[in-house]
């Protein structure tokens, strides 16, 4: 039963809905751009992303320094060592991706985000774009720190013309995909501690345990084993991963699957 109360006059003009298909498309584009701007401000106005960037530089630099300084091999150089930093960088990129949504869920700011932009797919697309950009920044910063760390470790520059650009591309790609995987896990879990600990336990404990017992044909399809294959830094005797394009596809499939499940969960449930 609808009860109508006394109608007074109003000075406000009603907002007309979008009409033409072209206008709707333009509106979606500008809504996405607006959401990306909003997500960028979120990223740059709290401490956690800056702390993660600082840790990436510190740990990446230290890892490369240790390898360069303590590993005694004849062909070791900055070009071959700086990529070791990417192993750690991708962990931080995944954590950054997780926090992109879990902090919103935990502090209930997702209410304001989805009230301002009710089309949740646009918000998630904006988070994917900003997370990918942030993860790429982490990847590049980690590699730069790795190069500096390796140089400080006392090794020669090495072949910088071929190895260096390839490693920058693959390692940055690994970081970006890790960030997107982290975002997907964050959208599913909605809780920072649960998502981060779950991801790290899988990455560093479960996969290693499975690797120790399962056959190669199974191990090479494990997400982070495949992801590390993108860096191509395993010793000759340990090379059981597919080539770089194949491992990229495997890891990307996991990242897209996590993101799709997370996006569906976010679209269908209350924030």
């Amino acid at each position, binding site marked *: 039963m609808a009860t109508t109360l006394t109608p007074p006059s109003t000075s406000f003009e009603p907002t007309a809905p979008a009409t033409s298909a072209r206008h709707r498309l333009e509106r979606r584009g500008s809504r996405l751009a607006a959401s990306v701007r909003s997500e960028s401000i979120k990223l740059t106005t*709290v401490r956690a992303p800056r702390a993660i960037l600082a840790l990436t530089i510190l740990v990446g630099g230290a890892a490369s320094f240790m390898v360069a300084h303590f590993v005694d091999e004849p062909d070791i150089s900055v070009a071959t060592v700086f990529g070791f930093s990417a192993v750690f960088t991708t962990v931080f990129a995944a954590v950054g991706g997780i926090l992109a949504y879990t902090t919103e869920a935990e502090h209930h*700011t997702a209410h304001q985000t989805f009230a301002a932009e009710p089309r949740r797919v646009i918000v998630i697309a904006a988070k994917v774009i900003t997370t990918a950009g942030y993860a790429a920044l982490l990847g590049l910063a980690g590699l730069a720190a790795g190069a500096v760390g390796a140089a400080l470790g006392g090794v020669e520059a090495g072949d910088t013309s071929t190895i260096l650009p390839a490693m920058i591309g693959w390692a940055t790609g690994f970081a970006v995909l890790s960030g997107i995987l982290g975002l997907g896990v964050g959208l599913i879990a909605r809780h920072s501690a649960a998502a981060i600990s779950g991801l790290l336990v899988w990455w560093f404990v479960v996969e290693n345990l499975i690797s120790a017992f399962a056959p190669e044909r199974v191990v090479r399809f494990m997400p982070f084993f495949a992801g590390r294959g993108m860096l191509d830094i395993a010793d000759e005797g340990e090379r059981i991963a597919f080539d770089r394009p194949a491992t990229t596809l495997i890891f990307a499939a996991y990242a897209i699957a996590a993101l799709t499940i997370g996006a569906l969960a976010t679209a269908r449930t209350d924030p």
Partner: protein
Amino acid sequence: MITVENLTKTYGTRRAVDNLSFDVQPGRVTGFVGPNGSGKSTTMRMMVGLTRPDDGHVHYNGTAYHQLDRPVATIGAALDASAHPGRTARNHLRTMCAASGLARSRADEVLHEVGIGSVADQRVGGFSLGMRQRLALAGALLGEPETLLLDEPANGLDPDGIRWLRSFLRSYAEQGGAVLVSSHLISELALFADDLVVIGAGRLLTAAPVQEIVDTADHSVLVETPQRNELIVLLGQHGISVGESGTRLTIAGASRSDIAQLALNHQIRLDELVDHRASLEDLLVDLTNDAAEFTSA
């Protein structure tokens, strides 16, 4: 105008909102009242698309919320006083400005409008609940919306803040805006609401102007007299029913002046003669009592 039609939401076996329908008119402050757990917050969340209704819909001037071209220009919602504790008030609002395509300067304008401009650069983690409430209201005002939707906005405000909120919402409505404000403080709402929507156990109990609800209250006259028995007999002779309430008599069906005249004619002394009408709070408590999920022992 907001039109809520047949809104229904069930969580498991519990029906949180049950076929709820009401309208909110522009130029009016509409109080949304109900006991704890009656479905007020769930209804408001459904009104801004945060919760998906099982059935029914909400329209803003005929358009569903998710189809609005610029939602913030149509409806400003403050459903809770939440913000990232590590972000400053200004940056919190700037994220909202950016998401809605508004100029960054709006953040400072609304912060001053709600009286917390001086703490714009402080982190929200250090804010009191009252300051957070003002920040939430600032967020709702960003798009200069035609409708405000506020869930318990007076929580945590000091008396001065409550008075300010009251006059702010009244002035907003007088300029033509529609305001839907939920509260469990009925006496507070009665001071500034034009209309009330009362729900219990997710169902609509009544929706009407405040005065109309007040007028439905039983009217009686309270009398204190040393000649109690004589007055009871006298009123009985005139067909007027009399009840007892402590040392007073409760008389229904006669006006104060009629009773005074009768007593004067028969030389009966009256020490007290007052009109009594149940308060809005009493009325609504009676109304929602059967539907209250959580009640005092």
